[in-house]
């Protein structure tokens, strides 16, 4: 009796399935409960990976609820690669489809922020520009395009995700108030830091990421948010060592 890996895997992920024939114990009897060691190893190791990957979600829901959710998630979305550091990409979507959690509408965006922080942690190192690289005339600044660190992430949310994240990481942080928040994740050295962006900040940075100049992105952003604070946004990027290049294309040359 030969046991295929397809059959072995199916029984691993579904405890309702019988243990495959052809697996034996020390007395050549059917393996029975011994197969559960593998079932348990897979479920426990992936559940543990989810706890580590999403500590704020775990805190918000409680560890036992997280165990239950992780159990459902890992069966629908087993890892697609051995790089466990990136496991859980589908978790925000998964959370948004959970009807029982629809009253906690902010959970998917909190999970997106936790993914962004983890990606930032493992991203390539880079060399930031000096702050005075931006000390140019206002006209030149508006013509400039920026390159960003691979560790930078930007998140636009209808929920106060930055406040929720802080409240669950910093005992002195204030209780979150309702409202939309844009978040910038930078990694000045090795520790990713989420920062609250001024309203419009995420759209403006996304514009630059898609190749717009500072001026073009500013115009598009201020059409929606007239008092968009460009100075604060630039300062957060500089302090976070998130700008790696400045290219100024002068119109008159």
């Amino acid at each position: 009796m030969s046991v295929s890996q397809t059959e072995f895997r199916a029984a691993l992920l579904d405890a309702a399935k019988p243990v495959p024939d052809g697996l034996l114990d020390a007395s050549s009897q059917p393996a029975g409960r011994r197969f559960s060691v593998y079932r348990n190893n897979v479920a426990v190791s992936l559940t543990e990976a989810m706890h580590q990957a999403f500590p704020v979600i775990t805190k918000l829901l409680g560890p036992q609820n997280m165990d239950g959710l992780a159990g459902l998630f890992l069966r629908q979305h087993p890892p697609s690669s051995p790089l466990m550091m990136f496991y859980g990409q589908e978790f925000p979507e998964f959370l948004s489809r959970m009807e029982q959690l629809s009253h906690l509408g902010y959970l998917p965006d909190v999970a997106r922020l936790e993914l962004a922080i983890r990606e930032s942690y493992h991203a390539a190192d880079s060399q930031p520009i000096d702050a005075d690289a931006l000390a140019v005339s206002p006209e030149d600044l508006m013509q400039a395009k920026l390159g960003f660190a691979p560790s930078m992430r930007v998140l636009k949310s209808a929920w106060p995700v930055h406040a929720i994240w802080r409240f669950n990481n910093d005992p002195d942080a204030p209780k979150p108030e309702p409202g939309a928040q844009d978040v910038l994740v930078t990694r000045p050295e090795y520790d990713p830091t989420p920062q609250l962006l001024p309203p419009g900040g995420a759209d403006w940075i996304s514009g630059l990421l898609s190749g717009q100049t500072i001026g073009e992105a500013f115009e598009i952003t201020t059409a929606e948010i007239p008092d968009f604070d460009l100075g604060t946004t630039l300062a957060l990027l500089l302090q976070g060592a998130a700008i790696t290049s400045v290219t100024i294309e002068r119109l008159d040359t």
Partner: protein
Amino acid sequence: MLDDALRSNRLPAAPGVGYKPQHFTQILEHAKPVAWLEIHAENYMGDGGRPLAQLRHLSEQFPISVHGVGLSIGGEGSLDSDHLTRLKHLVEWLNPASFSEHLAWSTHDAHFLNDLLPLPYTDMTLARVCEHIDQVQNTIGRQMLLENPSSYLAFEESTWSEPDFLREISQRTGCGLLLDVNNVFVSATNLDYSPQEYINEYPLEKVGEIHLGGHDEDEDDHGHPLLIDSHGREVVDPVWALLDYVLDRSGPKPVLIEWDTDVPDWPVLRDEAVRAQAALDRVPA
């Protein structure tokens, strides 16, 4: 078959430990008698940041053993070529003292199961494992070591004993072997055979590294002892005794302490390395 020039295992016959980032500072200050470190390859396949910076720093002071847990060498399907490429990059960047992997599978149909799963020992699985090891050694341009698993069950279809299977793989591919002494003890207890007899049949001359770790105790449906390879506690006395039995026959080898869950403070892990040093000191070089 591997070219002789590529047999590049450079681990010292001394104690090593599995590296955990929480021990970084203390390792730099109080390593002795720990002489080398082992990392899990997959944890260092990101693009940058602290993990790679710490590893670069450690590699300037210690020989590093890269131990893969995700290649799925025993898999029915072909190896994941993206993963093999990532491994090649890591090995080229780090130039480690050794690379090792497991006689196990973990990936099937592009799903990674994050556990070391067992395979039957047949002519068919032998051919497939050898093909995969050839591919790994050709890709990374060096010899690899293959580790014996801890077994909780046996396959009815198996026609080879584990030591014979490992010897044959080593002869066909030129790979070396990583002897996990705790795994031998766990498997022998679970499947009712003598761990000493296993060692007597095992090709000790192929061993490039030894692993030791802690296990948990459980029972199967019939009240038979079932040991679980958990790497979450001290190595037990019978496993230390089995290490002595091995070293008496093999001579000094690099000996690694694995502690992956409920990771203790550095002095506790270091004490295990002290005990490994004592075991090595008993053996004439």
